[in-house]
C-alpha cells in the first residue's frame, strides 16, 4: 500500500469512529432545540427555528432545580468526607508499619469487586432502622462507604512513593503526627487527591442504584432519579425529553471542556496501576 492511501484509510477510520462516538450527542443536542411535532415530521433534520425557550420550560416544569440542588449537596458532601477520611487512612497505611497493616489494606481493597447487591438490601433495612432512609444524609453516608476503598487504594499508592526523608525532617522540626499528615503529606499529594476527587465526583454524580433504593420522596431525588421520572412523565414528548437530557449533559461537557486532562486522569486512575 502506498503511503498516502494508508494515510487516508487511517483518517477514514478515525473520522468514522468519531461519528459513532459523538453522533448520539449531536443528535440529541439538535433535537433539544426542536419541538416534538417538528421532530416527528423529520427526525434527522436541522432545526429551522432554535427553540431555546424549551430549556427553561424543562427546568422549571420538572423540578430539575430541586434535583440539581440535591445532587450537588449530596455529592459535594460525600466527596469532601471521602477526601479527608480516605487521605487519613491512606497516609496511615502507607506511612506506618504495624501488624494488621496489610490485612486492613487487603480487606479494604478486595471490597472493590463486591457486587452491590451484597450490601444494598441490608443497607435499606439499616437506614430504615436509624431513620436515615429517604434522607440526603443517609445517601451521603452510603456514597462515602461505596467509594472509600477505591479512594484509599489510589491514594495509598501515591503516599507510599513520598520519600521517608521528608517525614524524618519534619519530625526533627518537632511536627506532631497530625501536622506531618496535614502539612507534609497532604500538600505533596494534592495532584493525586484532586484526581480522586474528580473520579468520585463523576461516579457519584451518575450513581443510580443506591439512590433508587434509598430515596423515594421527590424532594430528595438526585438528578439521575429525576431524569428517569421526567422520562416517565413525558414519555411521548421526545423533544422535551431531549431538552431534559441536554440539561444533564451540558454541565459535564462544560467541566470537561476546561479540565479534560484532569478528568481523564481521574477516571483512568484506578486502571493504570
Amino acid at each position, binding site marked *: 500500500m502506498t503511503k498516502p492511501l494508508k494515510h487516508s484509510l487511517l483518517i477514514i477510520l478515525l473520522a468514522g469512529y468519531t461519528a459513532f462516538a459523538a453522533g448520539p450527542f449531536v443528535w440529541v443536542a439538535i433535537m433539544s432545540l426542536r419541538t416534538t411535532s417538528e421532530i416527528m415530521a423529520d427526525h434527522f433534520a436541522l432545526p429551522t427555528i432554535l427553540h431555546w425557550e424549551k430549556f427553561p420550560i424543562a427546568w422549571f416544569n420538572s423540578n430539575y432545580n430541586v434535583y440539581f440542588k440535591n445532587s450537588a449537596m449530596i455529592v459535594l458532601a460525600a466527596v469532601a468526607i471521602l477526601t479527608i477520611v480516605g487521605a487519613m487512612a491512606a497516609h496511615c497505611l502507607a506511612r506506618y508499619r504495624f501488624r494488621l497493616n496489610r490485612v486492613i489494606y487487603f480487606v479494604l481493597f478486595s471490597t472493590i469487586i463486591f457486587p452491590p*447487591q451484597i450490601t444494598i438490601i*441490608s443497607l435499606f433495612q439499616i437506614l430504615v432502622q436509624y431513620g436515615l432512609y429517604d434522607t440526603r444524609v443517609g445517601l451521603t453516608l452510603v456514597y462515602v462507604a461505596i467509594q472509600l476503598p477505591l479512594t484509599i487504594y489510589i491514594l495509598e499508592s501515591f503516599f507510599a512513593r513520598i520519600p521517608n526523608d521528608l517525614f524524618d525532617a519534619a519530625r526533627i522540626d518537632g511536627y506532631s503526627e497530625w501536622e506531618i499528615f496535614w502539612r507534609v503529606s497532604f500538600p505533596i499529594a494534592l495532584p493525586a487527591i484532586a484526581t480522586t476527587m474528580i473520579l468520585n465526583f463523576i461516579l457519584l454524580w451518575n450513581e443510580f442504584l443506591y439512590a433508587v433504593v434509598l430515596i423515594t420522596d421527590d424532594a430528595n431525588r438526585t438528578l439521575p432519579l429525576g431524569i428517569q421520572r421526567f422520562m416517565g412523565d413525558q414519555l411521548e414528548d421526545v423533544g422535551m425529553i431531549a431538552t431534559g437530557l441536554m440539561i444533564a449533559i451540558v454541565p459535564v461537557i462544560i467541566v470537561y471542556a476546561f479540565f479534560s486532562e484532569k478528568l481523564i486522569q481521574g477516571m483512568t486512575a484506578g486502571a493504570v496501576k
Partner: protein
Amino acid sequence: MASNTSSMRDDGLRRPWGAIVAFLLPALTIYVAFTAYPVVRTLWNSAHKVLPRREVFVGLENYAALAQDEIFWRSVRNTITWASISPLAEVSVALILALALYAKVPGARFFRIAWFTPVLMSYIVVGILWVWIYNFDWGPVNAALRAIGLGGLAKAWLGNPNTALPSLIVVTTWMWIGFNMVVLLAALHSLPREVIEAAELDNCGWGQKLVYVILPLIWPTVLNLIVLSFIGKMKIFDLVWITTKGGPLWSTETVSTYVYKRAFEWSTFDLGYPSTIAAIWFVIVLAIVLTLTLALRQRSKLEY
C-alpha cells in the same frame, strides 16, 4: 509524643499507636457500619424469611428454592455472557484505535478527548439516548437499514428477545471503548522508545512489531482492563433498568435487576430470598474474579 528524641534510623519502624488509631478510625467506622455489617446481615437474611415486622428462620430453604429458580439462572447466564463478551469487544476495538493514534495522526489530542466523552455520562442519559437509537419507527439504526434497502432487517431491537441483549452489549461497548483506548494509549506512550526503534532496525513489519514487541509490553495493562471491564459488567443495573427492565421475556434480566425486583418491586415483602440471591452471586463473582486474576497472572508470567 513526637518530641521524644528517637534515633532517626528506626523512625519508619516506630509505632505511634495513638496516631495510627486516630487516622484509621473514621475510615474503619464507616467501613464496618456501611459495608462489613451489611454484608454479614445479608448472609444472615439469606437463612431467614424477612418480613417487615418479623424474621422467621428457614435454614437452607431459600437456597433450595434458588436452585430451582429458572429466572435466576437465566439472569446469571445473561450477566456472565455480557461480562465475557464486553471486555473482548471493548479492549480489541480500543487497541486498534489506540494504535491508530499512536501512529502520530494529526489531531490525536482532539480524537482522544472526543472519544472519551461517552463514559462521563450516566447510564441513565445513555440509556434513554439508545432507546431512541434503537426505536423501530424512527431510530437511526432502522432508518439507515431502510435507506440502504435492507428494510427487511429493521426490527424493534430492544423489544425482540433475540436482539435485546446483544443490542445492550453494543451500548456498553460504545460507552467504554474510549476509556480503554485512553489507558492503552498511555501505556503505549510509556514504552521505551529504544525497544521500538530496535525492532524497526531489525526490519520488523507493523504486524510483527505489534505481536512480538508492543503487545507483550502492554500485556499487563490489557489484563487490567479486561478484569476491570468484567467486574463492571457483573454489576450492571442502571442501563438495563432504564431501557428494558430485564425484558422482553427475561432476555436482558441481569442478577442486579432480578435482586432489585425481588426485594423492592414484587410485593412479596420478603427480603430473605433476594438476600440469598445476593449471597450466592457474591460467591460466584468472587470465585470468577479470583480464578480470572490467577489464570491471567499465570499466562502473563509465561509470556515473559
